[in-house]
């Protein structure tokens, strides 16, 4: 049998299997939630902000692999310093 085909590309799968920046920032300055579990995917983002700059960002998500990859790599999730 030929190698098993994959549903997603290796980068997406890597982020899905080894998610970065998961969790909640302690005492966040800002918190946002997008989506609705009943209708689709949901993401919750918490931010620590110092002097107008994001210094830490964490997410939680209920969704498919593509969303989890997106959340991992979302600019806000890679935000510290911006």
């Amino acid at each position, binding site marked *: 049998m030929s190698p098993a085909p994959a*549903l*997603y590309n290796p980068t997406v799968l890597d982020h*899905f*299997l080894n*998610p970065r920046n*998961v969790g909640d920032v302690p005492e966040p300055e800002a918190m946002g*939630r997008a989506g609705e*579990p*009943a*209708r*689709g*995917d*949901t*993401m*919750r983002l918490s931010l620590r902000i110092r002097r107008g700059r994001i210094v830490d960002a964490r997410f*939680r*998500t*209920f*969704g*498919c*692999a*593509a*969303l*989890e990859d997106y959340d991992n790599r979302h600019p806000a999730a890679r935000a510290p310093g911006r």
Partner: protein
Amino acid sequence: MRQVYLDHQSATPVLPEVLEAMKPFFAGAYGNPSSLHRHGLLARDAIARAREQVAAFINAESPDEIIFTSDGTESANLAVKGTAAARRRDGNHLVISATEHPAVIASAEFLESRGFACARAPVDGRGLVDPGGIRAAITDKTILIAVHHVNHEIGAIQPVREIGALARERGIAFYVDAEAGAGWLPVDARDWNAGLISFSPHRFYGPKGVGVLYQNRRARLEAILHGGGQENGRRAGVENVPAIVGAGAAAEIAGRDLERRRAHCARLQRRLWDGLRAGIPRLKLNGPEPGPGRHPATLNISAELTEGEAQLLLCDMRGIAVSGGSSCMSRSRNISHVLAAIGLDPALARGNIVMSLGMDNTEEDVDYVIETYPKIVAKLRALSPS
């Protein structure tokens, strides 16, 4: 890594005996069954034999009552649209259950766009159709009642015999989509009082590319595929001879092995459900409890705070093949109409997967799933916003 295939409701492997029966009809006996020379007659005989095997499998009165189509979807389209076309003068109203397969629902919707009306009878929390609900939906214009034998998603076994008696009493055509149950549970054309019954051998160790529609001799049907006179004018198009031969072989074996299949899968189903339930808090079984009211091979479960496609993907990476409802990559992102009809919380409906057992599964397979799946759920729950 152990490979555990738990998607037998989508497809089963073709049995070696079935494949052997099919093989001569690819390159050797390749004649067109409509041809009058010996090559054609050989193919024609093979189809006649398959028709007898399938008729015996469902206790039909005659092999002439069997129509071979390309699959279950075509059979459902023929049953619903073909009945509507044949009985148009008698009325323009259909009654279907709310949890029919999309092939039936979409066929009914097509008819609605052409001047028919269609009532959708509700189901209860376990997914059971109430014959009283069917009775209440009937009008003096009703020409067809369509209720499936076993639900394709949640495994609920419907009271088709009772609904068949009701349809007969009112002189209304009765169509049973038996896709999910055929080959695992008895299908009995005479006992059910059904004018039309459809099923597909790929769900019980036969090939894809062939479907069956049983048409009782008294059931009126108009063809929806027009062309040559194949299948006694009921379905034009050159017959898929190898697949039809495979359908006959698979039906004969299924008839012989039905009880063994049911017992084997029911035992594993019980073991799987007990093991998963013990290992995962907040796990919901959708549809009836394992037992006489449920398909013996399927479990439909929702693990709170997890999403179905993510579960499916992690299962696949650990060698476990399961089926999911809505997902980004599958063809529909909507919540299953079946889970909506039983009133399941939409978030749980999005966290839904289906495991369907087969004869190749063992206790060791089940134990591997019982050990592995809770870890998958725990991983996803750790990511999830509460």
